[in-house]
């Protein structure tokens, strides 16, 4: 087994992990666990569940490193595993602790935002989405989840994810037009 260092990129390290190289897993962990922890913490308020998800993720990587087919960034591949492990972990927990919880769904808050629209920048437009709509955009666009997975993560039905995504899209389109 070759010694791994900072010179080896993620693809090479992952190949070593697939060969059963435990130190290589540690290298991968040191590189990716920190940002995973931060990103997961933004989606789950329970630190214990975040830690459990990180562990599940790297155990899954250890057993399934050979499944990486060289398409896309290793970081994105790892995130795909992590977010689905988080959904699994949330499903095992009867009491859900989600950062963006299902709050009241009054349309008035959104209408207020829509009335105040005068700008055309994407950042601002995203910012003015209601927290519920932004959570759905985050789960489907940024995290790459299906409507069903996003629904499980956010604790809402898949149909609600779809309608909220449509509303978010309409709002963004209108603001950026």
């Amino acid at each position, binding site marked *: 087994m070759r010694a791994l260092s900072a010179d080896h990129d993620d693809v090479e390290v992952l190949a070593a992990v697939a060969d059963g190289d435990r130190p290589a897993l540690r290298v991968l*962990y040191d590189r990716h666990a920190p940002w995973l922890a931060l990103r997961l913490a933004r989606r789950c308020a329970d630190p214990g569940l975040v830690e459990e998800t990180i562990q599940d993720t790297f155990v899954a990587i250890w057993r399934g490193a050979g499944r990486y087919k060289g398409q896309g*960034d290793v*970081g994105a591949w790892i995130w795909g595993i992590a977010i689905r492990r988080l959904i699994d972990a949330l499903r095992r927990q009867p009491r859900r602790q989600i950062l963006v919880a299902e709050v009241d769904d009054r349309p008035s808050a959104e209408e207020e935002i829509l009335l105040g629209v005068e700008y055309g920048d994407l950042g601002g437009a995203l910012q003015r989405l209601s927290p519920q709509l932004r959570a759905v955009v985050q789960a489907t666009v940024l995290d790459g989840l299906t409507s069903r997975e996003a629904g499980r993560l956010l604790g809402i039905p898949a149909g609600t994810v779809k309608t909220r995504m449509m509303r978010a899209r309409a709002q963004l389109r209108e603001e950026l037009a």
Partner: protein
Amino acid sequence: MSWHVQSELLERYARGDADGAQAFSVEAHLPSCPQCRGQIAALVDGAVLQGAWEGIEERLDAPRRGPVETALMRAGVSEHVARLLGATPALRLSWLLACALVLAFAAWAASRHDGGVYWFLVLAPLLPLAGVAVAYGPDVDPTYEVGLAAPMRSFGLLLIRALAVLVTTTAMAAIAALALDGLHWSAAAWLAPSLGLTLASLALATRMSALAACASLGALWMLAAGVGWHLAREPLVLFGAAGQVTCALVAAIAAFVLARNADSIERRGGMA
């Protein structure tokens, strides 16, 4: 990559203070940028990550649970008992499959010949006996050494495994008996002999190895079956009222001997 997240924004993101749109761009960027990942790694609590890593190593080093162990834990059996039972040689899938095959064959034979049910009845009590023979001991148990050091008493382990073996083989034999043509009292006649033989083997195992105890009892049982048939010219004589009472009696005596000798098994550190 030419574009990178500003250090100030990375710090705010790590603190959880970045607003939605800013966090979006940080999160979209990090998976593909080793440089920014390295920068943000310094902002995360290392102790928490080290703790999580130790948990990962522990899980990678732990033996993976077999199907029996997983099923037992689902059913609410505590982890250490599930592991001890899961390691029972006679609860391996190969063993259970072999038992099922033998029973299926016996049931098939019983349905094809008039005397077939007799062979089924002779065979059914032998299965739990054979299971107990390989339930615990230095020759057959991969966890034997571990078991000696475990905080559980050897006798307790032996009993719990024998019980598990008895329950599984009896359940399988019962299913096979239901498949016999024309449900009759005789389909249940193997229950008392089965219990008697198993308990007797456990009692004998306080004096000799489990393997030898089970083998000699099995041979004795077959001999009794053959002689009974020959003398009485009636295949089911062994399973009549007298036979059932004898078996129950043997079971009771064996249970008594077993209870009195529990300590001797204990002192010898199992059935060596």
